[in-house]
């Protein structure tokens, strides 16, 4: 009996300890970044472009990487969203139980397991193809060569879209499936076509799930390094027409290389060629703060949705 009690107590202790370790790890990492990085985070750091240099002095700020994170996330989500909604709609509203549907489902599952580094090297092999040159730009004037540069915000956004697609499909599909059948029947009974039923009734009712999918996708894109590293080009600044933030240069910025916070961190840590770990920590801190905000936003949307429903 005592043995059993000891066993139970030790099991409980183990569960509590692991829960506390999880908690401690989370706060530990944030505290560590805060201690190491807070000194470098100033308004100037946030609002100036980084300078291409390995020296800590005059390294500038992280405006371009922050904007890069934003642009990559936006392009990734903008490309993935219609794609994911369409696939989810097809799977939940149209797909018949046949081999093709089974294959489609299998393909999405397998795609969800593909490591990001593999998507990245696939992108490198695919996007230097000259027919896809419009996504980055063609190499002009070199004799006997017809190749595309293969690295740009657009290319990176497509890579990201491929990465998050399966997750977004799954979330959207669940949301669409959760829409009560009565809604569809009512709409059809009113004479609406199936398309109208889906676009005007089903999808709007599933919007909370779709928003969750967007936030999920954003979170994964923001955190990725491998795809950015190989498909965006490990540059430090924006390399399109300058100034990159000028609206008239938007296409040039999208077709050229840049950096995101994750590659900035990698480049400035000892693991990249950079020599400025304190800036890597500062950028990490900023990135974590962005992620915390995103998480909070997701929570808030969920909460507001609940309130509305009630």
């Amino acid at each position, binding site marked *: 009996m005592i043995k059993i009690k000891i066993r139970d107590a030790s099991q409980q202790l183990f569960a509590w300890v692991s829960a506390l370790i999880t908690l401690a790890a989370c706060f530990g990492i944030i505290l560590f970044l805060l201690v190491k990085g807070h000194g470098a985070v100033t308004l100037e750091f946030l609002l100036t472009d980084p300078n*291409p240099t390995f020296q800590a002095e005059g390294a500038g700020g992280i405006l371009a990487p922050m904007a890069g994170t934003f642009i990559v996330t936006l392009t990734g989500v903008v490309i993935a969203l219609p794609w994911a909604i369409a696939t989810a709609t097809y799977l939940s509203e149209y797909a018949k139980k046949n081999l093709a549907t089974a294959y489609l489902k299998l393909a999405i599952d397998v795609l969800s397991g593909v490591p990001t580094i593999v998507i990245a090297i696939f992108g490198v092999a695919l996007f230097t193809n000259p027919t896809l040159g419009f996504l980055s730009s063609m*190499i*002009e004037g*070199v004799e006997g060569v017809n190749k595309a540069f*293969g*690295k740009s915000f657009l290319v990176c956004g497509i890579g990201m879209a491929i990465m998050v697609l399966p997750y977004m499909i799954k979330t959207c599909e669940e949301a669409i499936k959760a829409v009560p059948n009565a809604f569809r029947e009512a709409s059809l009974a009113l004479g609406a076509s199936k398309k109208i039923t889906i676009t005007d009734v089903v999808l709007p009712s599933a919007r909370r799930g779709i928003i969750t999918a967007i936030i999920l996708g954003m979170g994964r894109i923001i955190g990725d390094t491998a795809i950015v590293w190989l498909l965006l*080009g490990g540059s430090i600044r924006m390399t399109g027409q300058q100034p990159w933030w000028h609206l008239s240069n938007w296409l040039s910025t999208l077709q*050229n290389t840049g950096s995101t916070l994750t590659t900035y961190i990698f480049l400035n840590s000892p693991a990249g*060629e950079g020599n400025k770990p304190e800036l890597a920590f500062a950028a990490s801190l900023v990135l974590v703060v962005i992620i915390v905000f995103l998480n909070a936003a997701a929570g808030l949307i969920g909460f507001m949705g609940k309130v509305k429903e009630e």
Partner: protein
Amino acid sequence: MTSRKVFVMLGLVFLLVCSMASVSLAADICIVIDGKQVATDVAPVLEDNRTLVPVRVIAEGFGARVGWDGAKQEVKIKTAANDIVLTIGSKNVTVNGVRKTLEVPAKIIGGRTMIPLRFVSDNLGAEINYDSSSRTVNVKYFSNMAGTLKIGGSTTVQPISEKIALELMKMNKGLSITTAGTGSGDGIKGAGEGRYHIGNSSRAIKEAEIKEYGLVEHQVGSDGIAVIVHPSNTVSGLTRQQVFDIYTGKIRNWKEVGGKNAPIFVQTREEGAGTLGAFVELAIQAIDKNAKITPTAAPHGSNGLVKQAVARGENNIGFISFGYIDSSVKALKIDGVEATAENALAGKFAYVRPLVVVTKGAPTPLAAKFIDYHTSPQGFKILEEENYLPMK
């Protein structure tokens, strides 16, 4: 007879007056290259409506390299794309191997070689405007660039490329230069496959790579490689032979090179890294062609990681680029020579590697100017800021 003499004399006087006149006229000719006024110790000379300028003006303005062959009286001007050979006092000139004729030959004035500005500029791809009211020759070399340029490769060279790209794009509205830091290996491969106009490399290109891709190398600077140990290590210098023996595994204890009795842990870099390629060439293969770095050496992914490993391990030895040396590690003297930029520039330090950019075949005109910028005074400044050694 006398009348002839007088005639000749008169002619000489006339010539003298003319040349003096032209000198005095040209004294206030102002040469502006890419928006910057060029100061010259010997003033430009106007002859037959052609401006002769000291050759240094071209070298400085265009990042060209100038050679002087005293025996043949030849001036060689070389940029990444073009090769001009002028002979003093002769109207014959070769441009990229093709013979052309000058209207005014190059000459020597005040001990300085003067060359015809317009001819040289035109043939190097510059744009020239003469404003007669302000007596200003406006030369555009780096500020008449337009089009797109794609550059990729060595992360070591990446900041230099980005800085140059930034400065050039400031000067040129229609110019777009895209850079990507992807490693020396990808830089070489990308240039060879035609993904980049210019591939950056921090190591010399292998024979096989040149052959496979038909690459052309352009050296844009150099970099010293320091052998580093922990600051507490009592050894303060090694000979090249000792470095070789340590890295090939023959010497395994610090006491064999005058240190304390402790094993030596060798730190190295990943295969293909520019710094490793250069180190193997300079420190290993220079002594024995077939020697290899000991397999127990720990490979690291970057200069920063080697430095970190050496800073943390008191028995470690590693090698890093000069730019990374700081107080956390100690750079060793090699053959008694301290690892400093001065010694490296003076050719005294043993381990100096080239920073190289490659193009597939001859560079495009745009790529050539980008490469030239490295060797212009502005380029020197950028290289020095990043602790590299410019090609002065």
